């Protein structure tokens, strides 16, 4: 059996805040999650949901209040783990007195890349992220998009097995986002595990094998996009001919749109029979009935709105 890429066992984080540091602020409730090797895993949630906290705990940037985690079977505080992982923080900041080439060389040294391999590897990485033309310009002169490319380059420079990306598409233009998507796909085809946090659902839907939704520091659901959207309330779209909206239908509280003599109704599957019954009773002409595929966005919104906790959700 292969070792999981990431295994999180009830990882929890509480910050002490205030002048006397006596008040406690819960950032992450006990989180249990497993990510298999080779997966592209999306970690979804709104701002302040606990995505970055989780990544900081996994990267050893903040100690957990309770719980533990393993990456490739090694404890997260084991320094050997660090050689196997790459990390792109949200809105990355780098030493702006350095050029991109100098920065990557510095990171290659820290990551233990042998001296003989550093120069060719840095050159290849600069080319891969498309900044070889400005590789000898100090980073203080770089645009946000270019810095994001440098961030991606430093995350994969040392050929890590697991890559953690915190909001990798944030602030990028459509072209930049597309390039990041392509890079993630390339990493997956190279057999790497990619764990990325985002609140851009279309990216997650397009890229991820599985996703998890986190809100207010609590895991609300985890699974493949298809599984999750199936769990979400399914709907049907019913189109029929009518000059006016029947009062009974209006009273049912379904979404309706009238254009000319056509009425378009979107209702949950439970209400489908009630809608059809009204159409039969009113002798209205049915044109079509189509199941509406639930999107990840609907699942996400549903999970964020749900008051019930998602405790017990597991990978």
């Amino acid at each position, binding site marked *: 059996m292969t070792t999981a890429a990431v295994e999180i066992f009830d990882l929890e984080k509480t*910050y002490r805040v205030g002048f006397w540091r006596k008040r406690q602020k819960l950032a992450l409730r006990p989180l249990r999650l497993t990510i298999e090797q080779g997966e592209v895993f999306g970690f979804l949630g709104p701002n302040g949901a606990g995505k970055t906290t989780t990544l*900081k705990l996994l*990267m*050893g*940037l*903040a*100690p957990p209040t309770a719980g533990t985690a393993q990456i490739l079977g090694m404890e997260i505080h084991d*320094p*050997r783990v*660090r*050689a196997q*992982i790459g*990390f*792109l*923080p949200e*809105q*990355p*900041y*780098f*030493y702006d*007195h*350095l050029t991109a080439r100098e920065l990557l060389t*510095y*990171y290659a*040294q*820290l*990551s*233990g890349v042998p001296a003989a391999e550093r120069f060719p590897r840095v050159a290849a990485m600069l080319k891969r992220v498309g900044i070889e033309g400005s590789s000898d310009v100090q980073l203080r002169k770089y645009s946000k998009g270019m810095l994001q490319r440098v*961030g991606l380059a*430093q*995350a994969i420079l*040392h050929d890590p097995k697991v890559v953690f990306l915190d909001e990798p598409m944030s602030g990028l233009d459509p072209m930049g986002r597309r390039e990041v998507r392509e890079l993630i796909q390339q990493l997956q085809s190279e057999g790497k595990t990619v764990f990325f946090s985002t609140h851009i659902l279309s990216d997650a839907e397009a890229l991820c094998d599985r996703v998890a939704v986190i809100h207010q520091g609590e895991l609300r659901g985890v699974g493949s996009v298809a599984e999750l959207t199936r769990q979400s309330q399914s709907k049907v779209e019913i189109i029929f001919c009518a000059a006016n909206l029947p009062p009974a239908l209006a009273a049912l509280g379904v979404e309706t749109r009238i254009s000319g003599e056509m009425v378009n109704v979107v209702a949950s599957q439970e209400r489908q029979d009630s809608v059809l019954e009204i159409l039969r009773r009113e002798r209205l002409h049915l044109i079509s009935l189509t199941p509406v595929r639930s999107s990840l966005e609907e699942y996400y919104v549903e999970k964020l709105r749900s008051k019930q906790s998602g405790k017990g959700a597991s990978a």
Partner: protein
Amino acid sequence: MNSRIASVAFNTFREAVRDRVLYNLIAFAVLISAAAILVGEISIEVERMVVVNLGLTAVSLFGVVIAIFIGIGLVSKEIDKKTLYTVLSRPLRRWEFVVGKFFGLAGTLVVNTLFMAVGVFLALLYVTHRFQRGDLPVLAALYFIVLEFLIVCALALFFSSFSTPIMSAVFTFALFVIGNLADDLRGFARVTTGLAGAIAQAAGYIVPNFSAFNIVNQAAHGDSVPARLIFYNTVYALLFSAMAISGAVIVFQRRNLK
């Protein structure tokens, strides 16, 4: 020194150089040249003393200002700018980072002091027209100044590991001033009894004894410096710096990065 510490140290040194820290050498050069030319007008008896006194005091002050103002930002600036995120997610231990930052700043100060030392000796040559055996204590005084910088750097690093940059600067500068009065503090403790005496005695031994490093007057008079003092001061500076850095490491090890 392992290669990761060396990499962090070199990056710190390079940052200081690119942030134009060594530009202070221009101000120093102007000051020492003006002093040498002006004292040329005074009697030959005192001009050497004036150049040595002024030169060594300037070397010390310029260096201490750099040690404090860069030292307090060594760790806190990296936390504020979040540059640490991509550094500490690599196979680099937190203590290696702190020690590397210390060596980087210490290296910057040593290079800075070397250039200033050359300036002092050129000014000496200008006023006395030749080097003499009595100039050797100037080298010892410069060495003691470098040792003083190591302690100041380590203290700035220690305070910055848990305090704001402004408070760190205040604490470090206060300790630098009190440390220069450590001998007086110990003398006061000897003639005072009761609680005040005990506090003065404790403070006299806790604060870094910078007064033991100040041999500017001896150097100006050309008095020789005992080898024993050089040995004791070296051991003292290394131990004190190591303690302060260890304190910084202990605090930084537990710190949450925001």
